[in-house]
């Protein structure tokens, strides 16, 4: 019981400890708030700009979730396709890897040519940056079905589709949820990049304007808000993972 309590408290203790150390370092070394503001200064800024921040943060959250949602749907479908066909898998990997290697910030201008400034570029950037890990993980989960299991089902007359849906997809779920944790944090990166370059609202846009005006505490406050949102969404994905694929987390390491 004691160990369990410690585990539950550990995230809070580590996080608070981190900010306390930061605060002490700023005060003891007399660092200018232009270089590195102390957490107390940032917190004050968060409070001061609370209406602005929450307005833009909600917008960013919305962009991120939309892009992430698209990535989940598209990633699942493409992952299933790649996992169930060795030919499609072999054929499309170079394209996928090539595409994923392009920095997404370089794609935003193209999105602006196509769709103009607004909500579309951030959503699409979030989508483009976050679908790749989902595809790779779902495909791996499906492609690694045990050959004996496949034989058992094929000897019964099961079609490829039967095998993918009865065994492949459920089997890929732990991989899928693992990839969602990566994808959701990436989706934030994507929507913020999109907003910085091609939007009039959102934390990304706020960041651009705040840094242009040298409002250092506001820049830091925006970053903190982003981090908090990211942790929050990550926790939700982790919760969904635990409640749907508990069967996959039986090892002592996961406990």
């Amino acid at each position, binding site marked *: 019981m004691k160990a369990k309590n410690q585990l539950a408290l550990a995230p809070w203790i580590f996080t608070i400890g981190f900010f306390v150390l930061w605060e002490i370092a700023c005060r003891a070394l007399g660092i200018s708030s232009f270089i590195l503001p102390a957490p107390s200064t940032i917190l004050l800024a968060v409070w001061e700009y609370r209406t602005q921040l929450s307005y833009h943060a909600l917008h960013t959250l919305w962009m991120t979730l939309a892009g992430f949602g698209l990535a989940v749907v598209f990633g699942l479908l493409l992952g299933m396709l790649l996992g169930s066909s060795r030919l499609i898998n072999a054929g499309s990997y170079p394209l996928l890897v090539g595409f994923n290697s392009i920095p997404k910030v370089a794609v935003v201008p193209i999105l602006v040519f196509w769709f103009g400034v607004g909500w579309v570029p951030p959503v699409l950037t979030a989508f483009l940056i976050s679908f790749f890990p989902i595809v790779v993980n779902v495909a791996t989960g499906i492609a690694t079905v*045990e050959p*004996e*299991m496949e*034989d*058992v*089902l*094929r*000897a*019964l*007359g*099961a079609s490829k589709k*039967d095998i993918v849906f*009865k*065994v492949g997809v*459920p*089997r890929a*779920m732990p991989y899928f949820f693992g990839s969602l944790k990566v994808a959701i944090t990436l989706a934030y990166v994507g929507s913020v990049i999109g907003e910085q370059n091609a939007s009039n609202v959102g934390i990304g846009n706020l960041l651009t304007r705040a840094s242009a005006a040298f409002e250092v505490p506001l820049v830091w406050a925006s970053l903190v808000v982003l981090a908090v949102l990211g942790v929050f969404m990550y926790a939700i994905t982790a919760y969904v993972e635990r409640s749907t*694929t508990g*069967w*996959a987390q*039986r090892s002592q390491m996961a406990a």
Partner: protein
Amino acid sequence: MKPFVDLHDVTHVYARAEDGVPAVKNLTLRINEGEFAAIVGPSGCGKSTLMKLATGLQFPREGTVIVDGRQVGAPVKLAGMAFQNPTMLPWRTTLDNILLPLEIVEPHRARLRRNKAEYVAKAEALLEQVGLKGQGHRYPWQLSGGMQQRASLCRALIHEPKLLMLDEPFGALDSFTREELWCVMRDLHAAQKVTIILVTHDLREAAFLADRIFCMSARPGRIVAEREVPFPRPRDLEITYTPEFSALVHELRGHIAQARRAA
């Protein structure tokens, strides 16, 4: 009696085999309906290939495979299979794992949803037969290896297959559990009248369970000896300690040793 599984002069080379050496060559094998056949041989002799050929998972390069009076050109759909690895799906309860074949095979596939209770009762009856009464709600990973293997036998039998393929099903178990499962297998065969092909390394297992034993040569595999097992049924585990039993096992061992030397 007409043969139920009839492999005639079968040669098979895997498409992926780099050296082009056939896995089985000029293999001829006849197994009667309702018979319990065992296939023994040195490792890598193509025993598993034989299973794949008889179930239509692979098609021979030469020769014919006839199962239940029809030449095999697609997976036979009437086979149940169990392997050394129980391959239970960890996200399904044991009961749902056993019901899996019914989600694939017609006519059960169309009937399953509406007649669920009937099929569940059948699965539970099977569980009881193999000594797993009331364990259906547990997940496979909550069961021991021997229990998982019992459940895997239930899965292989739930759709009342005419042909049961066992590929070293007891290979990974300790010897006490193995002997217990021999008896389970013996009783299932007596109750269901299914044709069984058991591939095994264990000569005592073959001698105890089978009506007829086929010895295979080293790769490329073919049948080098065929032996009727004379012991009357029902057989008790005690017969494995009789001199006749030891003599049979000893004779089989001679065939295998010769096959290994020839390789």
